[in-house]
């Protein structure tokens, strides 16, 4: 249905009954902005929801569907005044709170009221990302080029040379243009209104906010407003009317502004819809829908089977025997994966196990190792400095971890890379690197070296059955490249046979 034709002054009051006295200074433009937001919400939402805001039930429906989120500052106190679902959050973060709310509740109309310091200084990062992300939300900023609540400090939009409490000798930093910033960050709807002495500007603001609400996606309406009691008193505009006149002199309709040559635009600020591009909001894009359906498939694929379970055997042996293995090499050699597979094989064989990993902050290179502890009973500490088995794929890790191997332990070294073994009697040398190149012929150097070494170590030492190891490999990394991993396994087992005969 169409919005009832009602003069804005006759429209219902959206303020909470307990909050009819606002916190703002007499003559502040925030009252005007609050009124425009109220009017626009009633008109626009009334239309969208098909309800009459002049009837109590219709108004109730509208109020229930609106969530107003704000940050900190004079403008942000608006959320407390209005009878919606309202959140007055932390300084600068309103857009981040609102983003989570909108993701979780796309059915709500999410509106934000904020000041220029709140959104563009402390909240600047959230602003550019909200504009880019394009959730269906409407942000209305009261841009008075200063911090009002804390007492007239300068903000990122303050005019250079003007005086503020924290710029006693004049603002020496350049401001940025909020409109240009919003467009650059990807906002699909950018408009600018102003609080002046003229009713037409108030009416225009109603329309701009309504248009922003109608826009699907992120919409930003910048409202040029005054702070006559703070910034104004320091800059010869201490009366509300005078400050509004000052703003009035600066604004021109955007159509006329566009016709002006660039040099004539100095000091002028365009009013109207400055930028509007239709594109689906984040939650309406085909890409998002595709992610949802692909995720559903992943959830189905990952669902574990439910099986009958009987009471578990009571633990008698408090200190059961355990076997500790370490796979070590450089980052990228797959020693972490080798450990994961060993754990998986152990669990398949009905044992208990713990896998831990150690790696550097970088994804490739640097030293990496994984530890696997296997037992028939409970395992407390998941690592050991008395390793039963060390698999060392390079010299550095052999040198470093040799001391962590027990006197009766074994060290399988990749003889292709480990040249010096210091006559250590625990060493079992195998040219793993050469075997890989010769027998497996990986497309990328060292791809599969972890599987070969793992198969070799576990088989030679008789730690786990070939079936368990093969199943663990093929269910894990092997899925991607079954041929290569089968060859790596077979080569490892063949080498184990050879070593056993020595």
């Amino acid at each position: 249905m169409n919005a009832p034709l009602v003069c804005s002054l006759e429209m219902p009051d959206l303020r909470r009954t307990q909050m009819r006295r606002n916190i703002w200074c007499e003559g502040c433009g925030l009252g005007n902005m609050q009124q425009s937001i109220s009017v626009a919400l009633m008109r626009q939402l009334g239309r969208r929801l098909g309800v009459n805001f002049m009837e109590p039930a219709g108004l109730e429906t509208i109020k229930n569907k609106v969530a107003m989120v704000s940050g900190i500052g004079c403008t942000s106190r608006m959320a407390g005044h209005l009878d919606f679902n309202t959140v007055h959050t932390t300084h600068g973060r309103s857009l981040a709170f609102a983003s989570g709310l909108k993701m979780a509740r796309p059915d709500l109309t999410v509106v934000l009221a904020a000041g220029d310091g709140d959104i563009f200084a402390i909240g600047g990062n959230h602003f550019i990302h909200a504009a880019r992300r394009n959730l269906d939300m409407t942000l209305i900023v009261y841009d008075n080029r200063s911090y009002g609540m804390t007492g007239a400090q300068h903000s990122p939009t303050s005019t250079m040379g003007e005086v503020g409490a924290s710029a006693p000798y004049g603002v020496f930093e350049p401001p940025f243009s909020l409109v240009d910033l919003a467009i650059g960050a990807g906002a699909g709807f950018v408009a600018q209104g102003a609080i002046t002495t003229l009713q037409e500007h108030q009416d225009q603001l109603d329309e701009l906010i309504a248009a922003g609400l109608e826009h699907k996606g992120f919409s930003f309406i910048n409202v040029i407003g005054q702070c006559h009691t703070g910034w104004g008193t320091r800059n010869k505009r201490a009366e509300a009317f005078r400050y509004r006149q000052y703003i009035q002199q600066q604004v021109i309709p955007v159509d006329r502004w566009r016709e002006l040559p660039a040099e004539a635009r100095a000091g002028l600020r365009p009013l109207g819809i400055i930028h509007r591009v239709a594109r689906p909001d984040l939650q309406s894009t085909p890409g998002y829908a595709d992610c949802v359906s692909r995720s559903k498939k992943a959830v189905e694929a990952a669902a574990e089977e439910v099986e009958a379970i009987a009471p578990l055997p009571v633990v008698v042996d408090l200190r059961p025997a355990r076997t500790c293995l370490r796979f070590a090499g450089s980052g990228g050699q797959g020693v972490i994966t080798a450990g994961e597979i060993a754990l998986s094989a152990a669990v398949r064989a009905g044992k208990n196990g713990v896998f831990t990993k150690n790696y550097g902050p970088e994804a490739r290179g640097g030293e990496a190792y994984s530890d696997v502890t296997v037992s028939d009973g409970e395992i407390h500490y998941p690592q050991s400095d008395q390793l039963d088995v060390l698999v060392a794929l390079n010299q550095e890790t052999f040198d470093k971890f040799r001391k962590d191997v027990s006197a009766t332990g074994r060290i399988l070294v990749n003889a292709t890379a480990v040249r010096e073994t210091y006559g250590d009697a625990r060493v079992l040398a195998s040219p793993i690197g050469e075997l890989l190149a010769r027998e497996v012929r990986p497309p990328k150097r060292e791809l599969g070296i972890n599987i070969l070494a793992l198969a070799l170590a576990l088989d030679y030492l008789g730690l786990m059955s070939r079936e368990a190891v093969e199943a663990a490999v093929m269910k894990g990394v092997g899925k991607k490249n079954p041929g290569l991993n089968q060859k790596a396994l077979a080569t490892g087992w063949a080498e184990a046979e050879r070593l056993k005969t020595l």
Partner: protein
Amino acid sequence: MAEAVEGAATARRAPAAKPAQGIDLRQINAVRAAIQDGRLTQARRTTLGGNDAIAQAALEAGARFFGGYPITPSTEVLEYAARHILGVGGSYLQMEDEIAGIAAAIGASLGGVKAFTATSGPGFSLKQENLGYACLVEIPLVVINVMRGGPSTGGPTDPGQSDVMQARWGTHGDHPIVAIAPATVQECWEETVRAFNISEKYRTPVILLPDAKVGQMKEPVILPPLSQVPIVNRPRPTGAPEEYEAFGQTASGVPPLAPFGEGYRSHFTGLYHNRKGLPTKDVRLVDQLQKRIHAKLETREARADILKTEEFFAADAEILVVAYGITARAAKDAVLEARAQGIKAGLLRPITLWPSDPGRCLPHLARAKRVIVAELNLGQYRLEVERLAYEAARAAGKVPTEVLGLNRVDTRLITPRDIFQEIAR
């Protein structure tokens, strides 16, 4: 923490009866306990990483929004959520920074959706302001902080337990906090579900504090069927919307929380607020609000739900080790070795670190001749144990037991040998 704040007494209720069937997460090793006495006859068996278990548990506890930012060693939580949460009808956002991650989660929670975020030390610092917001505004929320060392970047991939005090006092202002430190992958799952249930039931943020080693280890786990995951949802208003008080006084101390959009319009602000949520400067209301958010976590029922401490050979321990998370696993091996050698050693393992558990700790602290607090920091939880030892001694009319620290911050774990040597010294 232990002192009951005024107002708690009125909110006190008898603890809920132990459920006759199903899993009782207040028990140690709750799933196993349920299997052992026949309350659970079906299960899922799988092998999981700690962080994956946490994320999976979050979704199975009903979480339907994740807001986060990548940071080692917690990123697997974000990645799991990214793979699965859309598929169960939820949503997630990788936000522009850590601050936005928790902010988005709070926003979603106000929408009536269970929400969580995950991070590690430096990111946890960034989240603190909004964590305080969630405490005062009473937002159900779970914050996962997979601990590494610090301060600053430290060793991002190396384990640490250096955020214990940050978890307690990281945000500004007086505030209650619940922080839970799992030690096994099984516990990562169980304690995450419990964390959500506490946060929902008591309208409070709960911090899960695994260390990097626990978050990144893999172990076999036994999980209940989805239908038997014990789930608690936030209290919701039932009366007329115009009478709704989102911050009102209730018997439990926990006011109901309506999701947005259902007619129970309210205001939520980080300013001191009245029962309707509107800003107030009424000194009586300001005082009431702050004391109530503490008191609601100090009722008998709340303490039964929240506090959790494992006593391992503690009953007659003369040398008492206090350790949590990965370090407690080393401590168990050390205690077993000591017992094998005839030394009366025992372990107290706080699973809930904050608030601490005087009921279970004080008798052991009063009896022990020596107390060793082993942790991967320079003595953070030791301060709390010293405080408890002082309380235990005062109650028993004795001199407080000596509380020693066994600390390591070189990125390596405290080993069973380290702890045994300290026990045997």
